[in-house]
Structure formats: structure tokens, C-alpha cells
């Protein structure tokens, strides 16, 4: 039996994932739908929907558009807000074996610090993933594109949590390794890469962009080679664990990320097509 899918993954600060296969933020909600469809507790981690200080209604539709081997989304971080998650959702996670890592997004350092502070006393939260890479909201990329701003954010969050802090990096930058090094130096325990790529689709009948904001985030197997290059660059740049994500559809495409140095992986868009994909990846890695 291969060790790839069986070994625990130590992300630091006492967080050891039971295995390396997780469900990516934005593709698994808060777990309550997938829990009904698959044996979610066999997986290594659930990275929740991006969660913000206040509830967000999300962007106007259409919010999704299919492209060759992929899809664009412009959801706009629809979520109930961190207070509702902490009060209403976390009790429902009690007894789950899968570690819950809450993905946190914001427009300012204070937004992130508030969210992480609210989540800090909640026992069911295993870790924090800082989303500095959402392409679909104003200021969503402000931190992800600027190594100094990203470092300041991580340092501020570091002061209010003892939990493992993972920083989710944007591929929409010139030098992703520079951002990775900056957040490592500022105290991040791990990084995940990559969030979606900015993309656009034109409605060929009328020449307008399909998505109402013009652009959206591209995900799916189309981005796997791009994500792999970015993750390899990040792995070369930092010593902290790297979680690879982007276009994984099966064990082979997941193993590519482990091959370039990632310690764990996340399955994203493929879950929409087949909710069992992450479990199939896990079984495939175990050989």
C-alpha cells in the first residue's frame, strides 16, 4: 500500500490532517450537503466556503459559465457571516471526524482579525485558511498581490490565534513565490495554492461577457498544469507545508502536486461533477 494517501499530514500548531486529501473552499459549502452524499469523514480536511465578517448576498446571476475543461464562477462570497457560522454551524460539526478548516475572507486587516477572533474559542474549528485571493469581490486580491500587505495581514492574524493558519495564494500575480515567502516569514503555518485564475467568457450571440462583472475565477482540469507550475514554484520557495489545489480530477492529477513537493491536496470543481471524486482520489493514492 502506498503511503501517499494513508499518512497523516502535520501542518503545524498541533493540526495533523488524517490524510492528505481535502475538499477545497467554495466547492463544499460548510459540508452539510456533501455529508449527505458521501462518507465525508474519511477525508483529510474540509475547507469551508469563504466566510466574511458580515453576511454577503453574493453577486447577481449568472454566476457560473462553462468553458473548455473548466468553469468560470462569480459567486461573490455568498455566506451567512462569521457570527452565524460560529453560532449556528459549528454545533453541527460536533462529532465529525473530518477536520474543519474555516476559510476566512475580508476587505481589511480588521475584517480578517474580527473573523479569526470570533472563531478562536470554537472547538470544532481545526484551523484557519486565509483567503487573500478571491477574484470576485472588490479588494479581494489586494492582499494576495502585495507581499508586504499579505505579510502584515498574517502578522495581525497571528496575534489573535493559536490555531494553524494556512494562507491561500492567488495565481493572479507575477511572482507567487514572493508572496509565499512573505507570509511564511510573517508566521503562516502553511500555504495553499492556487485559487482560481481570472478568466472571461464572451456570449457569442451578443458579444457581451457572460458573467455580469465581466470576469470570474477559472477552475477545473483546464488549470491543472498552470496550478502545478505555481505550486512547484511555491514549494521551492518555502519550508512550510504546501497544499496543492487546482484542476485535480483523479489520483494521477493529485499525485502530480505531491510529486512537485506539496504535502497535501484539495479537490475542488471535480466535486461538482462527481461528489465522490475526493474519496476516489484518496483511494487511488493509497493504491
Amino acid at each position, binding site marked *: 500500500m502506498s503511503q501517499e494517501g494513508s499518512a497523516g499530514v502535520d501542518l503545524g500548531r498541533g493540526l495533523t490532517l488524517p490524510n492528505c486529501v481535502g475538499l477545497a473552499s*467554495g*466547492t*463544499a*459549502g460548510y459540508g*452539510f*450537503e*456533501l455529508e*449527505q*452524499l458521501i462518507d465525508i469523514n474519511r477525508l483529510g480536511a474540509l475547507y469551508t*466556503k469563504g466566510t466574511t465578517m458580515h453576511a454577503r*448576498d*453574493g453577486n*447577481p*446571476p*449568472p*454566476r*457560473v*459559465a*462553462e468553458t*473548455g*475543461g*473548466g*468553469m468560470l*464562477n462569480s*459567486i461573490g462570497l*455568498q455566506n451567512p457571516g462569521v457570527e452565524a457560522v460560529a453560532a449556528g454551524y459549528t454545533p453541527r460539526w460536533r462529532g465529525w471526524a473530518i477536520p474543519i478548516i474555516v476559510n476566512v475572507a475580508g476587505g481589511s486587516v480588521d475584517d480578517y482579525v474580527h473573523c479569526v477572533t470570533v472563531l478562536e474559542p470554537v472547538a470544532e474549528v481545526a484551523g484557519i485558511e486565509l483567503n487573500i485571493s478571491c477574484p470576485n469581490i472588490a479588494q479581494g486580491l489586494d492582499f494576495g498581490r502585495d507581499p508586504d500587505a499579505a505579510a502584515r495581514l498574517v502578522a495581525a492574524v497571528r496575534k489573535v490565534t493559536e490555531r494553524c493558519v494556512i494562507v491561500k495564494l492567488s495565481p493572479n500575480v507575477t511572482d507567487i513565490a514572493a508572496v509565499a515567502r512573505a507570509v511564511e516569514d510573517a508566521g503562516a503555518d502553511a500555504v495553499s495554492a492556487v485559487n482560481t485564475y481570472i478568466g472571461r*467568457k464572451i*456570449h*457569442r*450571440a451578443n458579444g*457581451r461577457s*457572460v458573467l*455580469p462583472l465581466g470576469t470570474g475565477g477559472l477552475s*477545473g*482540469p*483546464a488549470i491543472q498544469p498552470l496550478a502545478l507550475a505555481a505550486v512547484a514554484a511555491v514549494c521551492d520557495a518555502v519550508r512550510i507545508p504546501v497544499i496543492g489545489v487546482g484542476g485535480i*480530477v483523479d489520483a494521477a492529477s493529485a499525485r502530480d502536486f505531491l510529486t512537485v513537493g506539496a504535502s497535501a491536496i484539495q479537490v475542488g*470543481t471535480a*466535486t*461538482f*461533477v*462527481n*461528489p*465522490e471524486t475526493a474519496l476516489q482520489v484518496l483511494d487511488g493514492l493509497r493504491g
Partner: protein
Amino acid sequence: MTADLSRAALETGEVLVVERLGGGLLELVARLPHLAATAMPGSFAQLRCGAGTTPLLRRPFSVAWTQDDTCGFVFEAVGVGTRLLSELQPGDPLDTLGPLGHGFTVVDGGSVICVSGGLGCAPFPLLINELRRRGVEDILVLNGARTATRLYPAERFARPAVPIVAEATDDGTRGHHGPVTELLGQALASKPRALYACGPNPMLGAVMRTLLESGAELPPTLEASLEAPMGCGFGTCLGCALPVRGEDGTSAWRLCCTDGPVMPMRDVDWDGLSALPGADVA
């Protein structure tokens, strides 16, 4: 609120036939024992179109009817996904996820009107079968399409006995010459207990407008099956938002896949819906 997905399952069925009904309408019949046993009126299934990564996403289709261990789906080959489905041969596998979605509230008495526009016929045979099972016999189907060949055949709305089907075509090639909504006024005289509608979103908006302008009392059960570009179909991607009016009158989003596809027509923000751009079919 989290959707109830307890009946949903992945199921690989076997294609029995893809029947050409005329006018481009297709009826796909497949052996799908789980879906056939668990689908409710208004349920949909996510069908995988081909085995590759383009098209990537499944396509949602109403479960048109069930019989023993088989299910029927009505569609048209308009994009790459539906073209692949149209080319399926008997014996081919069909990868499905379902049943999904919030379906119709099935009444158990009184008279019922079903308003269908084009492919909006799809959920009605299963609904009418269930209405009949509950003893509802006074069922009127108003079936509209662009032209005669695109009308779903009246005898397929229910088996064995056919409900009363009144037809309308935009070009007058069969039935009433004009939109199906022009048949509504007379139908409302029966003071229906329920009105169910399915069709393109603009047609559904016209149904609601006609109802309101008629001055007639609105049927107590007034529901429409809606559509939206969909990612997952089970409530995690949040891609299929539709505008509704909240209790305080403000606009809000609801998911077509889990809050719908069937929604109370009183709740839909029809102005907001009509302002949305048309579907991008590729």
C-alpha cells in the same frame, strides 16, 4: 437551511432509447431503478454528457416520467452537452445524480391547471401521474410551443388516460394562434385549486402577469419550475441564484437547485428575473 439530499445518489443506468419526437424534441429513456423509485414530481437529475472533461459540468433535466425501473427525460440538442446526449445509443451507460431539487406541492383535490411552454412540458407527466394517484381527475394542460412540430404530444402528458390538453402555437400551425398565456383567462374560470407552470423564464413571467391582470383569485397553490445555469445541482457551488422577494419585500437570492427548481410564483421577483441575461448555450 440545508437541502434534504437523503434520496440523491449517483447511479449509472442503461440507455434504452433516444426517441425523436419531431421538431427537435427528444425523449431519452433509461433504466435507472434508484431514480425511478425515488423521483418526486418536479425532481431533476444531473446527467453527465460524455465521459471527458469537456463539457465538464453535468446538465440538469426534469424527470419527465417514471415507469417501473425506467425514467424518461425530454430535451433538445442545443449545445455540446445535449448533442452528446442526443447521440446516445441503446445499451450505452448514463451517469446520473439524483433525484435533486425541491419539487411541486401535489394537491389532493379540486381542479388543476398545468401550463407548459416548449420544453417546459418535461416535469408534467410525472406530476400528472401523482395527481391522478391522489384522486385528482380535473386536470387541464395548456401546452404552448413555437410551432406544431415542437408541441410535446398530448397523449404523453399522462398514461393511460389523457387529460384535457389545449394547445397554442406562436405561428398558428396548431391550436390557438398565439402565446399559451392567452388560454389562461378562460381556464381560470374553473377556480383551480392549483396552477403549475414550467417553461422559459420569460414565459413564466408572462403567466404571472396574466394571472395578476386577470383580476381572478389566484390559485391557492401557484408554483413554477424555474431554470438557471447550474454548477453542482446540490447546493454547494451557489451558482444558480434566482431573484426572489423576501418577506419584507426586499430582493434576495435563492438557489434554483435546492430552494427550487419549483418555487411559489408569489415569491419570485419576476422583474428581477426578466432583467437577467438569456442563457449562454455553448
